[in-house]
């Protein structure tokens, strides 16, 4: 599903150049649930941004579902993001003046799905994250866990190939974190490919594979026995 070969990325900081990613090779098959771990500055967010086409790499190859991702214009990148990727952010990034339903329907709007179908689909996804009754509520009326579930529903609504989650539990307490991870696991059970960036060990162990990043290189890549979040909820 995802194939990365010898990926390099550096940032210019004045006259110095900061080499953040120093040759990453990584492959993820369809249906995998991968945790990307590393301390801050290890390059894990940069990697996720490149995977999410929010940022471009300096060199290297990136193939997503058989499509080589390179030389993207902003328009092309936007279209690919819409088609291939779902995003879940640490700070939820819901649009605060739109109801839960409208937030979930937004990627479908950019996919030019007809209004009625959009509403139906969005409601369906809200139902799947258990928030059907909250459809008309604004984000400010929701708890942190509920917001993240809305964000996950939004990411899933576009039916992406890959779900990218950047510290999805970073702003949540542990009980709520497990609820969110439970949801992510269930989505993964349905066969969706998910990448989770985290620095929390327990969250990482709820995935099926852990990739450790340190100073811009992968130092460890291992399959693990998944801990189900269900038991903690």
């Amino acid at each position, binding site marked *: 599903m995802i194939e990365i070969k010898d990926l390099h990325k550096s940032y210019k900081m004045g006259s110095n150049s900061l080499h953040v990613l120093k040759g990453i090779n990584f492959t993820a098959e369809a249906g995998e649930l991968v945790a990307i771990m590393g301390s801050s500055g290890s390059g894990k967010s940069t990697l996720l941004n490149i995977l999410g086409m929010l940022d471009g790499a300096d060199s290297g190859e990136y193939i997503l579902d058989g499509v080589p991702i390179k030389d993207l214009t*902003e328009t092309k990148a936007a279209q690919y993001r819409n088609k291939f990727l779902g*995003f879940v952010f640490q700070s939820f990034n819901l649009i605060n003046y739109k109801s839960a339903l409208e937030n979930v329907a937004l*990627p479908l709007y950019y996919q030019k799905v007809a209004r009625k179908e959009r509403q139906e689909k969005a409601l369906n996804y809200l139902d799947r994250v258990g928030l059907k009754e909250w459809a008309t509520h604004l984000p400010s009326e929701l708890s942190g866990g509920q917001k993240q579930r809305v964000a996950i529903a939004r990411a899933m609504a576009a039916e992406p190939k890959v779900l990218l989650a950047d510290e999805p539990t970073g702003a949540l307490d542990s009980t709520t974190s497990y609820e969110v991870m439970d949801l992510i696991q269930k989505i993964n059970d349905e066969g969706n490919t998910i990448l989770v960036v985290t620095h929390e060990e327990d969250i990482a162990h709820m995935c099926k594979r852990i990739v450790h990043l340190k100073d811009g290189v992968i130092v460890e890549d291992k399959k693990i026995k998944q801990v189900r979040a269900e038991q903690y909820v």
Partner: protein
Amino acid sequence: MWLFDKDLWVEIFHTLGKNMFRTFLTMLGVIFAMIILILLLGSANGMSNGFDKVFAGTASNSLFVWGQSTSEPYKGFERGRRIRYKIEDAEILKKQIPEIEVLAPRIELGSHRETVTVYREGRTSGSSVYGDYPEIDNITKKKLVEGRFLNKTDIEDSKKICVIGEETYKLLFDKSENAVGKDIRINGVFFTVVGVYKPNNNINIDGENAVFIPFTTFQKAFNTGDRMGWMAIAVEPNTKVPVVENKIKKILKTKYDIHPDDERAIGSFDMSEIFNNISAFTGVLKGFSFFVGIFTLLAGVIAISNILLITVKERTKEIGVRRALGATPRTVKRQIVVEAIVLTAFAGLIGFAISVGILAILNSLWGSGEDFPFVNPMVSIPQFGISFLLMVSLSVLIGLIPANKAVKVRPIEALREE
């Protein structure tokens, strides 16, 4: 076509509607600008209409010619000779100058600007007394309060009748007394009143205190023979008055042996000059109003652009999220430009409605044009159309500034911003 995409509009009204107060403040500048523009234009139009009303009834393409005294000696005549026209001059001029449409000869009792005592049952009025042809009504229209004006039969039969002005009526008659059919006496001759007229608003060549007698009657009653005091002349619509004026003077100068360079001997007044001046004045006024209004509008639209710039900055993160979710730069740009257009157009319409209301109030207060030339102050549909179109195109151009700023921010940077 995207313009008719319901979702775009839902999205835009949603965004604007969720920030009602800010939206309203943003629009305020354009609302005021539109009010100023429409009020200025409307007032200029009202002024122009007011002048039109003042001059209604006076043929704009007309001139008056009278005799004065010579300023140059010529052909053995001394300077200072008084020029007196003869009634035959009217026929000569009409025959030789085909551009003359109407020529109404007139004679005045006493010398010009002097009054004559008119008697009636012990009351007197000092009035101007004119011998006139009915044609004069085509040049300076009289508004009759009572009765009728002079007619052809009066001239043919030299009837001893007269039409008097409202002021004369007030001096000679009791209030609400019927003047028609009553006699008045001038220089020992009795005339029966057939009509009373009211002056035509502000333009007032003959005055209100005047008595009009058929020209032929005047000749006989006051023994003036073939003399003629002055001529009121209306020129064909497509002919310029000064051209005819020069032709008339040339003919008269030859006939009365006046030096070709004598500027004083023949007095004349070109009515069209006033009209030209006034239409130039109102034209400049309208142009100026438009100029000022458009720049005020520009300032208003720039204010919208400014607020949208701030809004874009505030919404950086939102825009970042939208782009992460698949909004193309075009979509983002379009949304902001359409927001600018909607804001401007809506504000413009509100301003238009308010200013039209104000103009309607002004109209009901001073719109009659009685003491101030101000009639029906309104903007025409083309004027409104042009202003509106200009405003909307400005908003498109200026909406592009915040729109470009919005897409310049890369989604990753937008998302990082907390």
